[in-house]
């Protein structure tokens, strides 16, 4: 009988939980610098992924793991306003960027909200899921030729093959976004606060000699609900092009910056 994969559940305070939460936070689907647009719009968001030092990226092992694979995380965005709602989606098709292959789906719905003391406050819900594939746990470049211990590890535990590891973000978030319109409508500054339920997983993809996943390695799953905050602004002077920037802070995980450029079908 085939061995079933063990799912190891980790809370946020465990080292494994911290690492999972860091990577999922970098993929949170926040406004990204631009709040609701008019009609249809398409855009591209670029998010910075800070590098982890050695201690931060090895929750329990001493062997090197190739986790700093992508310094920037690009994400296309498609939005539409209708019936008072602003719906936005994003799909990163499975293509290789840097040393990873991402296939990620994200979506959000922003409500009408209400005005208060010069601010407009809108509720927003979002989700993100998918898979990011890369060689993390068994990377030949980090082990072969790097000493007898690592060579032995690569030959035995890794079966002499590079791993096919999967990080799977599985998040649902909700937040309130307070927007202030300035400069005759050309500048929209906002602050946001919310929380996300995070069940992201890391599937340790050690491959056997036959090239199938070694079932003796667990799937790590985060079990956490975490707060997050955003501070951003969008610049849309005239015409169809708008730009925006955002600071995203997930306490205990990451502070990062995002920038977005968007083209609207309607000026």
């Amino acid at each position, binding site marked *: 009988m085939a061995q079933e994969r063990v799912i190891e559940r980790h809370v946020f305070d465990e080292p494994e939980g911290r690492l999972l939460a860091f990577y999922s936070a970098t993929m949170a689907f926040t406004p990204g610098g631009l709040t609701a647009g008019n009609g249809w719009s398409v855009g591209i968001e670029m998010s910075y992924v*800070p590098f982890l030092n050695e201690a931060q990226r090895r929750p329990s092992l001493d*062997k090197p793991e190739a986790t700093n694979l992508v310094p920037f995380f690009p994400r296309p965005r498609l939005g539409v306003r209708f019936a008072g709602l602003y719906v936005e989606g994003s799909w990163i098709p499975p293509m290789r960027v840097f040393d990873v292959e991402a296939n990620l789906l994200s979506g959000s719905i922003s409500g009408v909200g209400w005005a208060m003391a010069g601010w407009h406050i809108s509720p927003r819900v979002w989700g993100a899921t998918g898979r990011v594939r890369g060689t993390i746990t068994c990377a030949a470049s980090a082990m072969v030729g790097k000493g*007898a*211990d690592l060579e032995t590890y690569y030959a035995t535990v890794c079966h002499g093959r590079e791993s096919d590891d999967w990080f799977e973000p599985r998040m649902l978030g909700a937040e309130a976004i307070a927007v202030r319109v300035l400069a005759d409508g050309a500048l929209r500054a906002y602050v946001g606060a919310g929380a996300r339920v995070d069940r992201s997983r890391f599937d340790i993809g050690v491959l056997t000699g036959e090239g199938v996943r070694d079932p*003796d*390695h667990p799937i790590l799953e985060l079990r956490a609900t975490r707060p997050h905050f955003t501070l951003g602004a969008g610049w849309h002077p005239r015409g169809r092009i708008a*730009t925006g920037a955002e600071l995203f802070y997930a306490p205990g995980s*990451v502070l990062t*910056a995002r920038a977005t450029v968007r083209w609207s079908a309607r000026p």
Partner: protein
Amino acid sequence: MECAAVRPNAIGALLTVWSMAAGCVDYEGAVDPAHGLPDVVVAMPQFRRDVLPIVERRCAIGGCHSVASRQAQLVLVADSAFEAIIDQPSRIVVGEVLVRPGDAANSWLAILISDDVVRRKGVARMPLGSGALTPNQVATILNWINRGAPDD
């Protein structure tokens, strides 16, 4: 306007610099050399109370000495760890015995978890690819072997 002509490049450069400056990881790496196990020397250790927890946590893990992976044909899960090591030959180095009761100095298991490369005869230190056992944990295992490696 000149200003309008240079704005896209200026904004792009500013955003890049801002991103790099603003981004940071908001946690410290938590390195626990004891891997959640007690980090004390036990003078009169018992196998199930003091040694087996170390073996289970650090050796009987996926990819290593679990039932499925059985590296070096050695399974160190709770049910079989004791029988697997007492007076059993090493599958890697001919002539070595994993645990010689009462003789830690000549027990291959004790040698493998030590930092003595020469005595390990070139074999990688165990646990492989993971942090070494703490000196206290090693001492506890040696004490258990030297007191006759009883199944207690």
